[in-house]
């Protein structure tokens, strides 16, 4: 079943088509890779799906029913979508723990002032911070974390949101091998729980290892789609992506 689809999706920057009539369908419970050379529109696609950029044309369909021609950032989580950023974006002046607590916050103001379910919230926060190995650092300000720790905290924040669809924009970039293992196991675990992961990644090895299907993009267009092994053998893909 397709959990997320785009139909003729368009995005222009100063007249240049960054996303050009892109139609793709993402299967529920699978890990989908988005690959392509720099500037091919991968991050733009993630930005459109998460409401960071406005859609210029076409539509996004969630669960096969809900159609959107405009995705608003504050509604994204209610559609069951969460994301990380290529350049990590945390709440810098807050502690590691507060970065997580704030996403599990009560949605009504009085609930949030009197912290009705604080124990439950702390339990979720501890669980996700233990998973990425940052529980010991919970009282540090996010701004003081190392690069890798910041990436892990951002991933932990998405886990705490317990959504259906996870958009990871280069989650492995710049990580030490130990941290890469943690991220890979988190992605696999999400799949086991029947969650949907969309992974923008440059590392072909990781794409082969993790993804069930991939979409290859070039200049905002879809170049190829299918299982990684088959797609990565295609001549057109090799030419565009690897420049061979």
């Amino acid at each position, binding site marked *: 079943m397709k959990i997320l689809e785009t139909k003729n999706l368009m995005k222009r920057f100063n007249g240049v088509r960054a996303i050009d009539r892109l139609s793709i369908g993402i299967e529920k419970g699978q890990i989908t890779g988005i690959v392509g050379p720099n500037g091919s529109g991968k991050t733009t696609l993630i930005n459109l799906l*998460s*409401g*960071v950029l406005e859609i210029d044309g076409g539509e996004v369909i969630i669960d096969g029913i809900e159609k959107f021609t405009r995705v*608003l*950032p*504050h509604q*994204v*989580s*209610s559609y069951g979508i*969460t*994301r990380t*950023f290529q350049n990590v*974006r*945390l*709440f*810098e*002046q*807050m502690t590691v723990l*507060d970065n997580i*607590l*704030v*996403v599990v*916050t*009560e*949605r009504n*103001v009085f*609930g*949030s*002032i*009197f*912290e009705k379910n*604080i124990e439950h*919230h702390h339990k979720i926060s501890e669980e996700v911070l233990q998973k990425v190995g940052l529980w010991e650092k919970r009282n540090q300000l996010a701004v003081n974390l190392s690069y890798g720790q910041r990436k892990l905290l951002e991933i932990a*924040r998405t886990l705490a*949101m317990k959504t259906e669809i996870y958009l990871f924009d280069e989650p492995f970039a710049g990580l030490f091998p130990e941290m890469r293992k943690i991220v890979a196991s988190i992605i696999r675990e999400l799949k086991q729980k029947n969650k949907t992961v969309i992974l923008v990644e440059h590392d072909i090895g990781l794409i082969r290892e993790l993804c069930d299907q991939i979409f290859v993009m070039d200049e905002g267009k879809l170049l190829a789609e299918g299982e990684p092994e088959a797609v990565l053998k295609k001549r057109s893909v090799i030419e565009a992506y690897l420049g061979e």
Partner: protein
Amino acid sequence: MEIVPQLILNSIIAGSIYALIALGFNFVYGATKFFNLAHGVMAAIGGYAVFYFAKTLGLNLYFAVILGVALAGIVGYGLDKFIYLPLRKRKASNMVLLVASLGAMTALQAVIAILFTSRFKTISQNIGTQKLFEVLGGVITQTQLIIILVTALILAGLVFLLYKTLFGKAVRAISDDEEVAQIVGINTNKIIGYVFFIGSALAGLAGILVGFDTGIEPTMGLGLLLKGVIASVIGGVGNIYGGVLGAFLLGFVENFGIWKISGEWKDAIAFTLLIVFLIFRPRGIMNK
């Protein structure tokens, strides 16, 4: 009455008023990152509301104060809902928002002047018969003592709200990165609305306290706002503690500055302090 203890007391009293304005201003600035010039006029709304409810309608004074604070909060909330929010949704720049707030300030000030005239008014009901307290060789009125206590309580309350509640965490998250706050599911527009209510209510409270201490006039807000802003800038804009520190520093510099000269130099001294900070430490004392 000795001069130095009295100057210290006067500094603390002035600092408390400025702190109250700076607290509300910084609270709103932290979440929205724009310079809300209409913040000061909320002080006038609070003061005039008490004048109307207590003196004109003859309601119980405490009740009138509660109504005044609430009214200032509601007007602030309304400004956000009907002016700033639609502008923010259209991705208006902070400059546009600043100009809009200047318009809102001027309009509200004019409405107050139309309803109550521009003449200076007093809301204190016991002028000349106020209880006086002697503290460390200086004299302080009951109202002034209340001003200091209220400021301390509000500071404690605001710190609790910001750092100990999930609501406060959401406000700080918006302050750090509003877009990400939205993506993680925080209804930022709703929270900012409440921030405006709380910040404006605090300005209203400051206006009421000034009204009891000296008096009210429609343009009182601008003067108070400017002092609150100077306090915020020298303490560190958007920083709750910084605003309070800046407010007391300003109170002391102003009051000790006029020790040997005429009191009319107060504003000149205050703005000189602002300029010195803008040149040598524009981030303020507390901001890194």
